[in-house]
């Protein structure tokens, strides 16, 4: 009974989003949040995608979607590669200062981005990368590294050390062992990492807001602009359609990945 009530309560916002997004404005103005629409319309979805306005521009949320894709794909790949490399180096090669590096990373996984924001803005501006796609990708990669390194380090800690030693005796070097032995073995954890990074980067708001300049605003920032900066009548149905569109990618990832998603959390996910 408790569970059923809780489940309904949890699903309520999703239901409200869906229902609102397919209602015409006349029905929304009646003020009954839960009522099923009398006349179902897909107009709000079309409008949200193609012509919703953020300030003066009315290109719909489509632009943000493309930007988010352009940001998420390279950031995910880069941060996972670097995380795997770091984790591998930390677990097997144990360079000098590994312990200190590890502590910094662990702390880095938790500290608020704001602490590093201004220096990073300046650094990017100096490099001419501020407000560009490579700039945003770089920042995401940088901020994704602590968690990714931890994830891979914990995974490699469970790989028998003898395996590594055998590869060493057979003449494998740093890169060869990584590429030919460790990476293929890491498939399960790579899946977890992809799920974590795609969701986290897609859902990011702060980095997009600060570093993306004007041209590369991700979908979340654009969504917020559409809803919170509109003047004139608020089109709640369009707003909810846009919100659903923005949530579609992470929700799909979540539904498809199921238990893997939970594994990501259990594997010491320290996102947020």
């Amino acid at each position, binding site marked *: 009974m408790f569970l059923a009530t809780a489940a309904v309560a949890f699903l309520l916002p999703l239901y409200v989003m869906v229902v609102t997004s397919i209602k015409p404005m006349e029905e929304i103005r009646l003020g009954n949040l839960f009522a099923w629409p009398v006349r179902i319309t897909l107009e709000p979805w079309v409008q949200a995608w193609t012509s919703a306005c953020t300030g003066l521009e009315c290109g719909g949320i489509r632009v943000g979607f493309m930007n988010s894709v352009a940001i998420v794909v390279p950031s995910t790949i880069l941060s996972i590669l670097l995380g795997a490399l770091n984790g591998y180096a930390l677990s097997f090669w144990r360079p000098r200062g590994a312990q200190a590096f590890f502590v910094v990373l662990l*702390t880095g996984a938790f500290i608020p981005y704001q602490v590093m924001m201004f220096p990073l803005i300046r650094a990017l501006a100096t490099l001419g990368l501020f407000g560009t796609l490579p700039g945003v990708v770089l920042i995401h990669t940088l901020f994704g590294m602590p968690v990714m390194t931890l994830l891979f380090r914990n995974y490699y800690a469970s790989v028998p050390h003898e395996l590594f030693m055998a590869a060493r005796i057979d003449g494998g070097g740093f890169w060869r062992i990584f590429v030919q032995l460790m990476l293929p073995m890491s498939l399960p954890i790579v899946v977890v990492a992809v799920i974590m990074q795609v969701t986290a980067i897609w859902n990011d708001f702060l980095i997009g807001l600060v570093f993306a300049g004007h041209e590369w605003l991700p979908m979340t920032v654009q969504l917020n602009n559409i809803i919170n900066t509109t003047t004139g009548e608020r089109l709640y149905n369009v707003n909810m359609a846009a919100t659903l569109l923005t949530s579609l990618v992470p929700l799909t990832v979540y539904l498809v990945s199921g238990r893997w998603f939970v594994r990501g959390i259990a594997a010491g996910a320290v996102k947020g």
Partner: protein
Amino acid sequence: MVATVLWVYVGSVLWSMRISVSSSRTLPISDFVGLKQYARLFDSERWVLSLQNMALFGALFIAGCLVIGFLLAVFIDQRVRAEGVLRTVFLYPYAMSFVATGLVWQWMLNPELGLQSTVRGWGFPNFKFDWIVQQDTVMLAIVVAAVWQACGLVMALMLAGLRGIDESLWMAARIEGIPKWRVYLSIVLPMLGPSIGTAFVLLSVSVVKVFDVVVAMTQGGPGLASEVPAKFIIDNLLVRANIGLASAASTVLLLTVLALLAPWFYARAHAARRSERSARALRASATQGAAA
């Protein structure tokens, strides 16, 4: 490469701290004014208010998530049917962004067309639920949204903990005739200590970082009633060109996080050492046994 990363992390944090003891406004100036920015910071009503808001939000949000998450986990652990479906339902908000969360709840809590008007339409004309537009309740509205988003995470962590508990415990409790709720409260809850600790740390770090959901839901309003530190910093950094003040504020935030993390790190290191020691003892006794 490792060195580069270290340099970026440590360097940028140090740089921020350096700015926080200068008189920088729009551009960084390398003079030294001691703790003046910090004094200014704590003189600022807006900052103090945002700290209070964060404390209130944090206390309610963490308590709410832990209690609801624990209850959900316990109920799901009773071998219910459709466990998979229920888990999916409770965790899906966690996959949504804070922005989307804030926007949905902004709409649901909208007093003119949202829950309030709906319930009034059901024949309760005096029903009142306008937390989001009242200065003294707006933080509660944000807590509701944030708990909805994050308590599935706590459920997942607790459920993993519950599944790790030995069946024999339940057997023993049944033989002794101890009611189930007593077992949960007095035995299982303490056993879940590590899971609760992890959940607590994750939640409190997200409290310190809380930004997106506030921006999306209330933009810090009505007035300044839902201002939070992370937003204060971004505003001063990007809009109000007050980087000295913003850096001082972010240093305070950093110290808060470190203060939250230190006991947890310590506990984890301690636990790791202990388990290592007991593993070694076990191995030693095993070899002794073999020798004998």
